[in-house]
């Protein structure tokens, strides 16, 4: 047996709290601020000339200084290109296409800040000292050979403690970890629900809900979890006290919690999709998909869309904003049995009943990147943080490594259970796969599956009570509205070009708009009271009036209105306090 390590988790503070020292650019301040441009230009010219002179006189000195600076530069830490690319925010603003010098300098400063931020972030990678765990097989061995027992024997005691088995009798079970990977909730079909800190094995609660349990899910914190029971969805706190019973979520089969939107997304037996905003306790959206029973659902963490698997081999993506799916992908020619999206939202794996397994590029909605044929149809799929894919079929769980970009040949690890598998999830920030089976729950060690470096400001497995509270408040403040759930989450930072173009067109057309011609129908006049002349005059008057009104009404709409936004505020008069207050 070869080397084996399991990554230890360490909270790494990414931020160094050094004091900012910001230097101001005073280089462009004129030494002689008076005078006019011409003079300045002259001075500059003169300077240049002088410089040229000096450079021609002493060329050696210049070379010397250059070499020196180069050496100094070389000494500095160079950030690897690929790391910089990882943190890059994209193309810079083209400064030539910005009006006014002042704005240009401002934007330039901003760009400098952005550059600083990316570089700084890239530099802080140095602080991510934790390494991922790995299994290394000797010659003639394969990693698949290693059993859980062998792994547990060769790792340190804390890691070994993470491998455990719970033998329970109310299966088949379903399980779910919290986002920070510290807590676990399991629900047995026969009504057994338990929440516990799986690292310390400290039980929060264990209850019998006396109803069939179809799915369980933690909400934003470990203190609350939702249980999809026979008819309705119930909310419990970590002590097992029932907080809510949401009857509008009827006959729910699967649940997903969208942490940034505070939405609990559910799909039901009757084909309903619903999003419940748990921060305000209201349904964000609920509608019938008209696709029959929905039992395969997962979320895309990148854009918070729901991915549903259908019997026609289609994977559909849904948001609470549209009754129709945002996109439909024909993935297989057979009914889909499992869908999983990796935590970065780059890859989607689908499995169908024809024993196919496909990897898709979910950002471009393209693929398949990889196509695999299995021996039997997988019933479950799960991606780990390090893009390991767990495939469950029957009573076997197989874990594949590097199966997205390159083609995997054989599984990385395999585990055989005595019972069929209910579902499984990789535990975040741990090298652990939690498998819920018909007869209990098993925690498997999968070296190298979890992210070793924790961003404790994002999710903190070691958070205290106070930190948890603070994180909750912050998360609530940063809550994203459900309207922003789209296929491309960056759409908010884009300009709505068609609308803008129409607006411009409308503005242009406004200039050429003519006043409407009025129809003048004079009353029947009495005999001798004004002839055609008077009538014509009246008509003209009315027409002019109409033109005036028209021009008045269009005045506000025209572009480049000089006074727009520059309304002078009248100075406050002492007697103004007696004026009636303006209703804002």
């Amino acid at each position, binding site marked *: 047996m070869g080397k084996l390590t399991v990554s230890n988790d360490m909270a790494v503070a990414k*931020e160094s709290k050094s004091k900012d020292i910001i230097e101001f650019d*005073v280089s462009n*301040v004129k030494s002689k*601020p*008076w005078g006019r441009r011409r003079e300045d230009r002259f001075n500059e010219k003169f300077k240049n000339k002088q410089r040229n002179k000096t450079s021609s006189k002493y060329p050696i000195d210049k070379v010397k200084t250059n070499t020196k600076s180069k050496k100094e530069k070389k000494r500095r830490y160079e950030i690897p290109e690929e790391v910089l690319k990882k943190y890059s*925010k994209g*193309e810079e603003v083209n400064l030539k*296409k*910005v009006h006014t010098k*002042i*704005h240009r300098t401002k934007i330039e400063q*901003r760009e400098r800040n952005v550059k600083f*931020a990316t570089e700084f972030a890239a530099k*802080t990678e140095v602080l991510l000292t934790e390494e991922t765990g790995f299994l290394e097989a000797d010659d003639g061995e394969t990693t698949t050979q290693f059993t859980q027992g062998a792994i547990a024997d060769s790792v340190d005691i804390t890691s070994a403690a993470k491998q455990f088995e719970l033998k329970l009798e109310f299966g088949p079970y379903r399980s779910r970890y919290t986002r920070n990977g510290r807590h676990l909730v399991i629900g047995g079909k026969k009504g057994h629900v338990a929440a516990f800190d799986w690292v310390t094995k400290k039980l929060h609660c264990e209850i019998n809900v006396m109803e069939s349990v179809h799915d369980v899910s933690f909400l934003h914190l470990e203190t609350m979890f939702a249980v999809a029971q026979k008819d309705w969805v119930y909310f419990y706190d970590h002590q097992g006290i029932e907080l809510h019973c949401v009857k509008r979520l009827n006959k729910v089969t699967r649940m997903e919690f969208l942490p940034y939107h505070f939405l609990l997304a559910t799909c039901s037996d009757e084909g309903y999709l619903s999003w419940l905003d748990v921060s305000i306790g209201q349904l964000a959206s609920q509608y019938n998909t008209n696709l029959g029973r929905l039992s395969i659902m997962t979320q895309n963490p990148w854009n918070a869309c729901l991915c549903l698997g259908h*019997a*026609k081999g289609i994977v559909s993506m849904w948001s609470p*904003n*549209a009754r*129709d799916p*945002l*996109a*439909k*992908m*024909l993935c297989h*020619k*057979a*009914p889909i049995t499992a869908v999983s999206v990796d935590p970065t939202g780059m890859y989607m794996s689908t499995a169908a*009943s024809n024993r*196919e*397994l496909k990897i898709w590029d979910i950002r471009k*909605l393209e693929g398949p990147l990889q*196509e*695999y*044929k299995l021996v*039997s149809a997988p019933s479950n799929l799960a991606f780990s943080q390090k893009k390991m894919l767990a495939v469950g079929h*029957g009573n*076997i769980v*197989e874990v*594949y490594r590097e199966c997205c970009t390159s083609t*995997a040949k*054989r599984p990385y690890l395999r585990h055989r259970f005595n*019972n*069929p598998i209910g579902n499984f999830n990789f535990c975040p920030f741990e090298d652990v796969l939690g498998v819920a089976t018909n007869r209990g729950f098993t925690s498997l060690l999968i070296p190298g599956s979890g992210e070793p470096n924790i961003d404790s400001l994002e999710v903190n497995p070691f958070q205290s009570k106070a930190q948890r509270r603070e994180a909750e408040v912050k998360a609530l403040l940063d809550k994203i509205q459900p309207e*922003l759930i*789209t*296929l491309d989450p960056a*759409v908010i930072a884009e*300009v*709505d*070009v*068609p*609308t*803008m*173009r*129409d*607006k*411009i067109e*409308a*503005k242009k057309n406004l200039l050429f708009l003519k006043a409407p011609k009025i129809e003048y129908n004079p009353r029947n006049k009495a005999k001798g009271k004004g002839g055609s002349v008077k009538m014509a005059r009246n008509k003209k008057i009315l027409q002019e009036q109409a033109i005036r009104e028209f021009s008045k009404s269009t005045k506000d709409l025209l*572009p480049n209105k000089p006074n727009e936004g520059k309304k002078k505020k009248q100075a406050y008069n002492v007697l103004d306090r007696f004026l009636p207050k303006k209703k804002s």
Partner: protein
Amino acid sequence: MSDESDYHYDEEIDADNHEKIVENIISLNKIKRLKKPARTEPTSRISEFDLVKSSKSGDVEVDKLSKALGNKRKLSQIRQKLESTKKKSYTLPKPLEKPQSERIKRAVAYERNRLLLDRWEPFVTSNRAQAHLKFPLGEVETLSMQAKEAVKMTERWTVKSELEKELNTLDAVETEEYIIEDENESEFPLTLEELKEKRKEAAKLRAHQSFKEAKARRQNKIKSKKYHRILRKEKIKQKLKEFEELQKTDPELALKKLEEIEKARALERFNLRHKGTGQWAKNKQVRAKYDKESRQVLAEQLKISRDLTQEAKRVELDSDDEVTESNTSTANLNAVNINNPWLSKAQSSKEMVDFVSGYRKFWMEKNANDLAISSEAQAEEQSQTLIEPIKVDENKDVELERNNQGKRTINKTKINPKKVVKVNQFSEENKSVQVEKDTKVTKRKTTGQEQQKKKLMKSVTNLSNSSGEWNIDELFEKAEHTILKKIKSKTVQNPNKTKQTSKKLGNKKSVEEKDTPKKNVTLDMPTQKKRIVIDEELQETLINQSETGTNSNMESLKNILASKTTPQKDHSVNIDPSNFMTVKTPTQLGSTVPDLVEDDLPDEESYRNLVMEAFEDDDVVTDFQKEKQEEIDKEKPQDIDLNLPGWGSWAGTGIDPKKARKRKRFIVKMPKTLPRRDDNKGSLIINEKAASKVKQHQVTELPFPFKSVKDYEASIRAPIGNTFVPHTAFRRFIRPAVETKMGTIIEPVSDSILMSKKRG
């Protein structure tokens, strides 16, 4: 005969009367003469009705006056002078009319203020461009330049002669300035007690000073001669006592004191005290012929002066000085001058001149009593004496001018105006001096220069008597240089002013126009405000023409402008053959077969799956394609058929159904829609309408500084939240634009900040 006689008679009578009558008649016809206004009382206003009629005949002309001089030889000089002035003088141009002069004034004022304001431009722009400003500004370093206090203090108490002051201004000795760093970290360098003490002391000093001043004033006011005499005597006694004591104790200091006394004696000799030149002495002289007493008193007075000089000699002899032969006043004077060319002889030399002339005058007057010379001659002589010193100066000036002609041609023009004035005064040397006629200096300035010149002249006259030639030259050069500088600076400051009087009104404008390009500072007009082009980059060709064409209705335009979104959306066409459902050969994974057969009965779900698996549908793909097509068709805008039902569809034999082509006219074709996102992606359907809710939050107008959508999007591409960027960068992003230091008074910016190179 009688007729003749009658006629004669008539003629005789007429000769007198007729003239009178004619005169009367003519006078009737003439415009009445207005009396010149004669003010009887001093009033600030003169009635406008008392205007004097301008008449040429009434003017006094120099020619007429000079005629009176006749051809006397004696007066030829005067006549010549007058003639020359007539040649040289010219009538001053008429002052500009008020609106025009005002305009010029305004222009000049504008220019000056503009330059003043322009100095702020870089400061303002740099502040505007800065992303971060910290108030109070310029906190970096506060260096205060201060001249050495102690030096200034002593300077305050020394009395300087006029010449010294003048020289100081010419030399412009750079005062030593010390950079005094603000080392007092604490705002209060002194404690309260110390401050109080300091103030007390200062108050004491001030009080003491004022007491002394009051006393001096009081004593000065005392008119009693006796008192003053006593005072003087007391002082002298006191001094003598001190001197004697000093001789015993400190001989060196005594020697110095002696020198001082000598100096005082010299002064005594110079001034006209006891010389019999005062009014009192003159009166006494008048009486002296008849009155013995007055004669005696006079003699006493003169004796005093003699005593003083004799005493001085005695002292000199006593002190055994080397100077033994310096009896005569002139020799003495020279010695003093050589030793100390500048100090104190400014006054003394002048007094000497006065003294000499006064003495001469005195004797002349004395002689006048005896000889009785005509007053005319005397006046002439007097004037001559007055002119004499200045003449010398004039000559020198001219000489210097000639010497430097080659070097300073430009400077000359600027000096000349002074000369003109001078030459007018003293027309004797006018031929030697070239006068440029187109001098462009205002009167005010010339007067200023005159004063300067006078001062200079004074110094020169003083010099001319005593010191060497080289010294004068040097001095002149220096003086000229400084004056030139001053003039230059003035002319630069207000170039328009110099031109003010130069030319006539008509030429004026043209001159200004000509000159404007010469200025190194141009008046640039504020650039016309351009209409903002909302999007220059935007060049989408797929503009919905028909829609915009129909937008002639204002309501619809308004709606568009007010609306947040339009339903349309464009996407770039990207054809990717790989996107078609490709048939890849799936890789066989080395997975094992689950060996466990589910013991449970297959539930509903698994049963369904089983059925599905059994009837695996190959039609899945075609179904999907059909679905996609439906979706596409659904979103496509339909053509509008405007055919009326039954129109053109006559039934019957012999009717050609091909004529239905006419129907095409009534079908409004919808424009081609933009390509869909999922075009060429066989296995994908994208719902284009779904994003409508996000559009409400999207930006629909390009904000100002950006010219293209791409750049605007790039400007908001980077997140700034602390969850996205490192904390240090985050703090940098959110740094407020303006920071103010708490508890400090933020003064308005002073122009000293323009001088400091470093700014916060």
